[in-house]
């Protein structure tokens, strides 16, 4: 494994990037739930 593999280009470490994905999913799901119930 080369040096490039040790670190992602964003957020400094893979676990942080993975956490960002999970948070993003939670935000998107909440946004979609809000959108579908929004009193248009």
């Amino acid at each position: 494994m080369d040096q490039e593999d040790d670190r992602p280009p964003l957020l400094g470490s893979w676990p942080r990037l993975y956490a960002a994905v999970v948070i993003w999913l939670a935000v998107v799901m909440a946004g979609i739930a809000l959108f579908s119930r929004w009193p248009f």
Partner: protein
Amino acid sequence: MATADWVVLGVYLVGIVAFGMWTGRGSRGMDEFFLAGRTMKWWAIGLSVMATQISAITFVGTTGQAYTDGMRFLVVYFGLPTAMVILCATLVPFFYRARVFTAYEYLEKRFDARTRSLTSLLFLFGRGLSVGVTLYAPSLVLGVILGWSENLTILVMGLSTIVYVVYGGNRSVIWTDVVQMALIWFGIFLCLGLALASLPEHVSVRDALAVAQTAGRLRVMDTSPSLQKPYTLWSGLIGGLFLALAYFGTDQSQVQRYLAGKSLTQSRLSLLFNAFVKVPMQFMILLTGALVFVFYHFHEPPLLWNAPALAELAQKAPPGELAVLRADFARAYEQRREAAERLALDRTQAEPYRAAQREVDAVRARVVALEERVSGRPYNDTNYIFPTYILSTLRGGLAGLVIAVIFAAAMSTLSGELNSLATATMVDFYKRYFRPVASDAEELLTSRALTAVWGGFAIVVALRARQLGSAIETVNRFGSYVYGPILGVFALAVLTRVRALPAFVGILCGEAVVAALAVSGIVHFLWFNVFGALSVVLCGLLIDRLIGSPPAVSPS
């Protein structure tokens, strides 16, 4: 279609074949042909992964589904981001460091040749049978739109894809996928923008969304705990997670894309890119369908979306019966239009609107019943809604462009499938059992020949699909029967110290469980992946414990 539309479609077809051949020039051996020399960047692989997943039917089918049933289908993608994280942390590093061509090759390193061959064979069956459907299903819709026969549509789409995949291999697949995905994105934005722009002046976007919401077309989250009900939040989060784990982690058509990464980082980033983008993108596609639904409140929709079927019905139906239905439909449509306009002005008018919508649904159900009685066949025209909308609203070559987007979606899936089927056949069987050592030139020639054979197979299956009738439905779902057990054996490989025999027997147990579930019909198919994978893991662990003796080599 107008002349400008034909020109745009023609330019796309000629351009994509030429571009595919240009990018794939200079392949010298298997590493180059199957894995693009392992030189690709994350964004190209990420777009290719996305393009391979979006088929033509995903594009026209999901918009149609949002029109008829709302946006519940979106939950299928809720498990995907988490699956990408799990794969990046587990399987992807194993594959990458093992320097394999196929995912199944890794199973021989971890277990034995028998387990590798069985798993690869399951993939070849599942993906091999569905590759014909990949070609056949869009030909039904595109044939009607273009006025071509289904066979001509299949041949144009199939042969143009085969040419560049046979010539350029995975590099051509990835680069054409990048262009096709860019085109698909453009098509999504164009259609969404058009759906918003084509609302009547006195109906704002907020009003349109209120109409769609009142009709249940913005509904996404169904928290029902039922295992039989389709597209509940839980089947999406859990079933969708296992489906995505299996598809992106063990289906060679996807694994081969990210094995072409320049480094492990590039491969991981390509999947995480999908994790961030996929759900919002699918949301936009479904929202377009919901807005098309609103559009047809202010423009009278056809009685049936499949125009040739409607023309045939007009000839064969009892003379007075269709005329009565036409009149009833026009009246119901007019009442719904008025109800929608009242709802746009006053949100307390929801119930009268719902009653008008139910009336439209009831008249349409009578038309569908008449069509089924006259034709003697079940009738479903969900996939024709979006193409009909495009042809009736887009001008100046834009309709041709969106039809090219549907072609792009079909061809990007087909190219990835052909490339992966040829790789699994070549690496897991031909090279493994018949010709382990050969020159680069011979291996390249055989790889191209196998790609052409699979392409020919896909075309033959697609051309004969009409004769297969309802068997096509079974074939189409075959993938969901094999994904779970394949995922299970990879979980055993990476997460446990189980030995070869228990793993092999575990796959057979998993297939038996999935077959039992499919026959009994007690759960929705999204759950097959969950139960299939878990049964392989449990059987494998149990048998390993029963046969005793020291554990095998550590997975690392």
